[in-house]
């Protein structure tokens, strides 16, 4: 490759092979792709050590993820790599849809108001992984092992024994929990003997990353049936380093080995870009896509995440984005279970919530694929009818489906939600990020972001300093499972962390009244909301969100380890 030099991560003799003491691990993560790395960093943030095993010695090779969604950036910000990704990545928000040789319409993904992160940035997956590897290297709690391939496993009721192969021989490793983040061809999945449920799409796509200096805008351009690729679709999207992603649908009958050859790729791309634009091929491959998932993401002590658990076509950019939401959902739960503060059953809700999310992603991805690749003449007629109507009929524009781009799941039906709901944000919804003016206890006010204040713990947002004080919410941060207290006030006072909402913007977004309370889980999804502050209601909603039904008052001293 011309624009990127792959780092080579050194193999180091693991203690198991060096004759040193190798204690049982609390968590072993199989796979150092974006999902495994993010899981390790998130665990370290909760003070939990992990060992990460990867069979390779570098980052993602080839044409893979480029679009990183807002919610993903919010999660990666918590994990400490979002700023680097923003700096290197290409921010975009506009998409244009073409049919034949005409531009049909354009869409804009920008939300109203000041936002910490845009709807999307584009950045090659290898950069994201490189930043995550460097970040993981700063954490003493992470033992990252390259060229350590998991080849066998023995699952017990209270742990898993992994057999790991290395250049210096094989060893076994015992772990209380295993996170299987070993990708679409997951070895762990095969060793446990699990099958995927879903569909493989009978279609092939040429994915080419080309280097060119072109003055195309930073927009997602999609074509149905363009003159340069008749009867098929095409996509053009900018990445970092003047690299552009080109997706050309080839159809099922295309010969993947032939199509990958430069003498066939170059003329195809010339037909698309015209003769005047000089380009170099960075990487080309031919893909077939599938939409499928495991029936269950939890198997005893093994937790599947990312592509090992589910796969979608890339048209909604829902692969890595949803995998990172798996991590966001899983890690706080695993941390509480490992700390003995929540029952094992909490991890079943990882399965319930993320299977629900995977189904949503698979549904969206399947619908896009069906629109892009009609299965018979009549569906083609429907598709083209929709496209022809789209110019003049706004309703038809909404039906055009060139990919429904990744959005975070809302866990509306989650067993972790309480029945208590109030205001404009429904339980299960991820907290919107909002610009806030905030004052930490004893500090002067500064501008910041709501999600940064929520962090990765339970937090209650109470509209009113006085309301919080008289309801006794000040005790919540001292609970065994602490609930941070964030008070929203119109003025500049407060002894706890306060958010100064002088214009009432926050109150409007949440539909809050004086005294209203909103309880967020550590992954920043809302679990319950009340019109007025009630400390015991907040505690029982927190307990429900950790699968703990508890009677009586909360002990004020932290529970023993």
């Amino acid at each position: 490759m011309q624009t990127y030099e792959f780092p080579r991560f050194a193999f180091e003799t693991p203690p198991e092979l060096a004759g040193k003491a190798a204690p049982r691990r609390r968590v072993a993560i199989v796979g150092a792709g974006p999902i495994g790395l993010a899981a390790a960093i998130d665990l370290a943030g909760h003070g939990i050590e992990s060992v990460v095993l990867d069979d390779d010695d570098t980052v993602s090779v080839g044409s893979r993820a480029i679009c990183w969604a807002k919610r993903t950036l919010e999660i990666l910000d918590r994990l400490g790599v979002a700023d680097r990704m923003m700096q290197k990545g290409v921010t975009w928000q506009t998409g244009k849809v073409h049919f034949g040789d005409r531009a049909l319409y354009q869409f804009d993904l920008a939300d109203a108001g000041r936002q910490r992160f845009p709807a999307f940035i584009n950045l090659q997956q290898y950069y994201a992984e490189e930043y995550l590897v460097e970040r993981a290297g700063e954490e003493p709690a992470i033992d990252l092992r390259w060229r350590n391939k998991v080849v066998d496993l023995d699952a017990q009721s209270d742990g898993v024994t992994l057999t790991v192969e290395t250049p210096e021989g094989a060893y076994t490793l015992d772990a209380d929990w295993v996170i299987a983040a070993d990708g679409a061809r997951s070895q762990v999945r095969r060793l446990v003997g699990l099958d995927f449920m879903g569909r493989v799409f009978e279609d092939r796509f040429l994915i080419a990353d080309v280097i060119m200096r072109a003055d195309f805008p930073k927009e997602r351009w999609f074509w149905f049936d363009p003159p340069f690729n008749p009867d098929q679709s095409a996509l053009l999207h900018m990445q970092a380093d003047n690299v552009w992603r080109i997706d050309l649908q080839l159809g099922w009958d295309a010969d993947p080995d032939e199509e990958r050859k430069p003498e066939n790729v170059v003329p195809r791309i010339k037909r698309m870009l015209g003769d005047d634009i000089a380009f170099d091929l960075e990487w080309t491959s031919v893909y077939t896509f599938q939409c499928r998932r495991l029936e269950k993401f939890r198997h005893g002590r093994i937790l599947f995440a990312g592509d090992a658990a589910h796969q979608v076509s890339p048209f909604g950019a829902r692969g890595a984005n949803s995998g990172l939401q798996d991590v966001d959902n899983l890690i706080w739960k695993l941390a509480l279970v490992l700390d003995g503060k929540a029952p094992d059953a909490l991890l079943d809700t990882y399965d319930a919530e993320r299977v629900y999310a995977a189904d949503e992603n698979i549904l969206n991805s399947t619908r896009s694929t069906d629109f892009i690749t009609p299965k018979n003449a009549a569906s083609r007629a429907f598709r083209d009818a929709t496209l022809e109507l789209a110019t003049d009929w706004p309703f038809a524009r909404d039906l055009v489906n060139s990919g429904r781009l990744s959005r975070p799941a809302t866990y509306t039906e989650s067993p972790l939600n309480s029945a208590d709901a109030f205001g404009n944000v429904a339980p299960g919804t991820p907290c919107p990020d909002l610009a806030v003016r905030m004052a930490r206890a004893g500090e002067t006010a500064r501008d910041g972001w709501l999600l940064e204040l929520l962090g990765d713990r339970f937090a209650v947002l109470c509209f009113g300093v006085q309301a919080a004080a008289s309801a006794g919410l000040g005790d919540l941060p001292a609970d065994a499972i602490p609930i941070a207290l964030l008070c929203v006030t119109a003025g500049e006072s407060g002894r706890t962390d306060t958010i100064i909402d002088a214009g009432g913007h926050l109150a409007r977004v949440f539909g809050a009244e004086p005294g209203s309370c909103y309880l967020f889980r550590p992954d920043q999804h809302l679990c319950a909301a009340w019109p007025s502050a009630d400390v015991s209601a907040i505690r029982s909603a927190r307990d429900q969100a950790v699968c703990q039904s508890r009677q009586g008052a909360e002990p004020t001293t932290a529970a023993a380890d």
Partner: protein
Amino acid sequence: MSDLLRKDLGFADGDAVYEALINAISGLDDQQAMKVMAKLILLLGNQIGDPAVIEAAITVARSETDG
């Protein structure tokens, strides 16, 4: 489900509407005709709006054609 759909004649002049539908696709090849019909379905479906009504019509249309 199909009580969402009226069974009596909804048009003042049914023959005229039927003729208009046939005229809409006359002189076209099958491919073009299918596209015109698809546009009709999309425009009329959007006008109806209620997905339950559309589902009901789909069920009827499909069950009369499957066998």
